[in-house]
Structure formats: structure tokens, C-alpha cells
């Protein structure tokens, strides 16, 4: 989920005074509100490397749109390369109560497959991101605590709020694959700079770093590069976006389950 928390915080915050004392809940509320208007298409590339792994690359097109409830999102990922996953598609439909749906179109088998809910903490296309990393939980699912202000880990000249994010429902940890998050939220634009994923013992096992936010209309940002490091085995995944189009409306039908695989 955290990937999406990062993607589009509002620039409205830029003009607001950070001199005043914001609570952690306030900061994250603004973050959540900012990303509720997202609708965009982008070309993506996943690079998997590090540890003992051999480098792998996958390219895809990514469509994302907020649902009518203005809370949840639909996401469609259509892979282009390598040839073994060409035209494979993954549709994420976020639902209330953590009942997200994941459907996968397998062109080789000409079949749409439902992915079991418990697999949302499994790897997304062999990367260090999980399925749940790229869906969005709502702020109401977390208890936020501010842990002070410090230099942003990836941009030292900017100050960041350090936010401790604990899951309200311990049962969610099994599905999400982590027990707690620590987020560094930039003071200048409220974008997330770094995220630590913590296990049950409080040990950090994954780290997400962001770079290259670009402004999109109106007054929003979108990260062009995200790097997820697995701190237990030195593996990492870089997720890059280009050709970001937030102006062309995406028809709702792009995310209809019945349309999945109908071009094959």
C-alpha cells in the first residue's frame, strides 16, 4: 500500500505553513486527501537486481483511477516484456475492509484467474514489491505517531517529519507482510521520502526510497522512481515511470473485470 501513499501528496501543502505544529494524523490526512483525485496512465519498468539474483527487467503500462467512492482505487498493469509475460495483465480492485480483489489474465492459458486474498503479501511479478505494496490502505487503518523532525534521508537539505504508522488491526499484518511502517514525510511538499517496513520484532526488513517527483496538474506530484531494498538479502527492485499522462481521461471500462483478456 505504501507505494501509493507516496505517489501523489498534494502541493497545496507547499503554501501552508509548516511552522505550525501539525499532528501526525494531520500530515497523513493531507497526504491521503491529496491522492484521492488520481487518474493516470504511465509506462513502467521494474528492474530486479542485487543479492545473488541475476538482473531482470519487465516493462508494462499502468492505469490507475480512483473509484466513485473517492476513497478506493482501481489499477491495471499490462506487461509487455519479457516475452514470457507479454500481454499478462493484473487488475487490482480495492474494496473496503481489506477485501481487495486481484485478478490475473494469463494469455498463454487464455484464462482469468482469481488470486487468493491471502497472497496479497506475496511478490509482485518476482520483485521486492508485494501486491499489497501497490494497493492503498486508508489512513483509518493506521495509528500515526510523530517521532520528530529530521533531515530527509534522500535529500538532506529538506526537513522531514518522521511518522510512526502502526496497524490498528493486527490481523492485517499477515496479509500485508509487515507490522509497522516508519515514514519520512517531506516538509516542503508532503511527499514521502523514505519508508521502513518493520516485522513483528520491530526489525526493519525492507526500505523504500523515492526520487524524481514531477509536478502534475493541478499541483500534484508523481514519483518517477521508487527503489525497494530488501535489507535481509541485499536484493532490490527499482520501479520507474515515464510517459505519465494524467490529462487524458481513462474510461471506467478499462478496469471492468469482464474486459480482462478480451483483446487476446
Amino acid at each position: 500500500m505504501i507505494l501509493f501513499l507516496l505517489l501523489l501528496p498534494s502541493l497545496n501543502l507547499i503554501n501552508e505553513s509548516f511552522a505550525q505544529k501539525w499532528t501526525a494524523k494531520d500530515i497523513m490526512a493531507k497526504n491521503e486527501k491529496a491522492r484521492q483525485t488520481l487518474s493516470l496512465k504511465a509506462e513502467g519498468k521494474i528492474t530486479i537486481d542485487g543479492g545473488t539474483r541475476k538482473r531482470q527487467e519487465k516493462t508494462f503500462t499502468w492505469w490507475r483511477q480512483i473509484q466513485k467512492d473517492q476513497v478506493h482505487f482501481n489499477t491495471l498493469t499490462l506487461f509487455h516484456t519479457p516475452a514470457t509475460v507479454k500481454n499478462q495483465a493484473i487488475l487490482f480492485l480495492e474494496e473496503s475492509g481489506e477485501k481487495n480483489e486481484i485478478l490475473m489474465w494469463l494469455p498463454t492459458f487464455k484464462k482469468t484467474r482469481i488470486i487468493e486474498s491471502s497472497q496479497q503479501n506475496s511478490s509482485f511479478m518476482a520483485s521486492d514489491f508485494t501486491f499489497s505494496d501497490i494497493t492503498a490502505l486508508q489512513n483509518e487503518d493506521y495509528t500515526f505517531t510523530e517521532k520528530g523532525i529530521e533531515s530527509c534521508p534522500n535529500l538532506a537539505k529538506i526537513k522531514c517529519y518522521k511518522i510512526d504508522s502502526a496497524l490498528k488491526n493486527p490481523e492485517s499484518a499477515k496479509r500485508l507482510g509487515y507490522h509497522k511502517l516508519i515514514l519520512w514525510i517531506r516538509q516542503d511538499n508532503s511527499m514521502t521520502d523514505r519508508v521502513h517496513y518493520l516485522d513483528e520484532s520491530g526489525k526493519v526488513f525492507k526500505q523504500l526510497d523515492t526520487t524524481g517527483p514531477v509536478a502534475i496538474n493541478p499541483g500534484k506530484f508523481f514519483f518517477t522512481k521508487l527503489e525497494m531494498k530488501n535489507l535481509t538479502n541485499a536484493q532490490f527492485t527499482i520501479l520507474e515511470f515515464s510517459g505519465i499522462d494524467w490529462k487524458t481521461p481513462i474510461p471506467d471500462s478499462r478496469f471492468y473485470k469482464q474486459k480482462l483478456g478480451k483483446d487476446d
Partner: protein
Amino acid sequence: MISLALLLTLLAPSAQAFEWGGKLWGNSLVKTSHPLEQQTQHNGGARIFGKYKPNDSWQFSLEALGFGIQTPLLIVPKKDLEAGSAFVEFNQLSLMYKTESFRLKAGRQITSWGKSDGINPTDFLSGKRNLLLVTEDSLTRRGHTSASLEWTPQSGASPWSFEFWYVHEHAYSDVLLNSKLTQNVISLNEQELYQEKEFALKFNYLGAGFDFDYIFYRGVTKTPLLTEQSRSLLPLNISLKPIYARQEGHGLNIARDFENYILRSEIAYQRRLDTFANADAITNPDRVDVVIGFEKSVGENHRFNIQAVGHHYPDYQRSPSTDQITRSVQNINLLLQAQHQETRIGSLLVYQYEPLELNQFKFKFSWMNYFHYESAQLITPQFDYLWTENFHLSIYALIFDGSRNTPLGVLKDLSSVGFGASLVF
């Protein structure tokens, strides 16, 4: 010419609208049942596909399969495969037009109906390229020449969709006879294809974590019945002709997410509209097939699939001919049509280990086992080495075992170990 010009206008060229890909593969199999005979089988070929999509409404699809095969020990219609033969078949050669609600597609098409893995009794329209002793479904599945119209209400937003299918040239499954068992006294003549047209209606509901299909179908059996065409006594030779019996069927497919596992189930009832006294070994070949399966992932790399399988003839009665040769033909059909028992109960267990990294071995183990009355089984272990994203090496085995009075057991002589390589591009 006007139609062609209109079509070309509609399909105005655009480089970005075209995509293509394919696969090259080769396999060499060594029989394990008679090691002293040093029998081998080889198959290899190419699968090429292309899509041309000038706009959101129109699409032209092509998928061709060219393959060579050398398969001793078998007799099949049309070809003598002892020395080797080459085939070119189209899986797809179709034109599609779609709107938000409707999708019309005509030409050569592939269908893949059913929710289960491995055994799909509701996959009424598909045939199987049984000649190819490979483990990949996309190479063995055979298409049909057909037109289909699909409607999804509410401009495509409805969870319901409805499909109508008209099949002009039906798919068929290859008939393989073990020439050792038939002792060179049986020959197969050309089959008479496409005498009957097929129709199907499919209703689909795709809900949240749950979907089901109901299918009504009227068509022909995909595995033909063999009927005696001629016989000579000195020397003894029986000439058989494959024919396709008419039948209709009802199918129900269900898949549901239970959070920790997925239920995938299929039920099919097929009623034969034609029976042939000199070919059918039972008086009433109407049958019910049931598959109930559970699929579960464990961790990142392990996947288990357990299916219970049942086949039943509600009105089972043998009708052996008094003529010995006719009775022999009936017995061949008994195995080809899997009519040798009133009820068969079995299971299919599939385990897959798929590492996320390259330069690792993937492993898949599949065990189809019928244990009721006369046991029979097919075991297929397979190792794949992922050299690169696109190049795989594989070693696999096809192990048929059980009573020779069963469809799996009769293929004992085909048990083999295979070595293969494939390049996807």
C-alpha cells in the same frame, strides 16, 4: 473488391498497432517402457502470433503453429509418422470488432473454457493435439472456425455477460492407436470432418472473489468414434473410419476465493444424440463429469492443486456385438471414449515450485490417478532450468501406468523421458 477496400480502410496501417511474438521449441523423448528397443520420439516447431489493432474497435489476430514430429509405435489418420511428418495449423486467424457492450469475433479461434487445471470437462469446443507429446497446454490445444458474439450489459459494467457461439468447422482431438497392440491388422482411414455444425450459449457472472459460468452446447464429440469401413480376412485387415457423433451438453463452472485457497469446480452433463451399434460399446453413452479442486499457494514459491475427479454413466449397459471383429472395434472405442467403467473416481495432484530468480530450477509434479475399480495413472514430473528470461531447458517424464483395460494404462508403451528447450520471443 469493395468489401476488401472497405476493410483495408478500416484497418488503416499503423506501426504501433502491430505486435507479434512466438516460441521455438524442440523435444526429444526416449521410451522407458522398452529400453532395449531404443525407441525415440522427436518433436519441434514454432508458434508465431501477431495482432494488428488499428483502433480500439478492430483487431486482427493470427497464431500459427508449425511443427514436425516423428512418432513410431502409433497409427493415426492421414499420416504415417514412422519417418516423420510436418504440420502447419492455425490456432487463430480471426477478425474482431468490439464496442463497450458487444464483441464480435469471427474466423479461426481458440477457446479455453473451465476453471480447473488439467481436466476441463466443460471445455466443450476445444480439441487436443495429442500427437504432440508435450506438457504445454498452449501447444496442444486445437481451435475451431467459428463466429462468436458476446454481450455485457451496462456498457460492459455488468457482472453478467452472455456469449453465443456458432462453430462452422469444429475442433477435434487426434486419435492415437498403439500399433503394437493392434498388430498391424488395423488401419485408419481419413476422418470425415466438419459434417456437423456446433452451437453454444454461455452465461457468465463475475462477482467479487467469485465467478461462475453456465454453458449449453450442441455439437459433436471431439474424440471420434471408430467405425468399421471394410475388412479382409486373408490377410486379416480391418479398415476403420473416424466419425464424430452428435451430442449436447450442459456445463457449470465455479471459482471462489476463500482467502487462503481458491475453489475451482466444473460439472458437465453430456447427452449423445447419435449412437452406433457397431461402434459404441455401451447402449447409452450419456455421461456426467465432475471436478472439484482446491488451489493454494504456500509462501512465494510453492503452489498446490488438489482435485477430485469423477466420471459416471447413469445408464451404463454394455452391448457387445456377437461378431468378434465388431466387438474388437467396440473395445477400441471403449477406451478412446473412456467408457470402460460405469463410474471412475480419481484425483489430480499438482505441485509447482517456481523460484522468482533466474538460473534456478522450476519443478512441476502432476499425478493423475484413477483408483476406483481398475487403477490407472499418469505421472509427469518436470524440471525447467531458466537460463534467461526467454530461454528454458527442460527435462520431463510421461509415465503411464495401470491396467491395459483403461485409457491411461493402454498407453504404457508411450511412457518416456523427454529433453527439451524453448525460446520465447
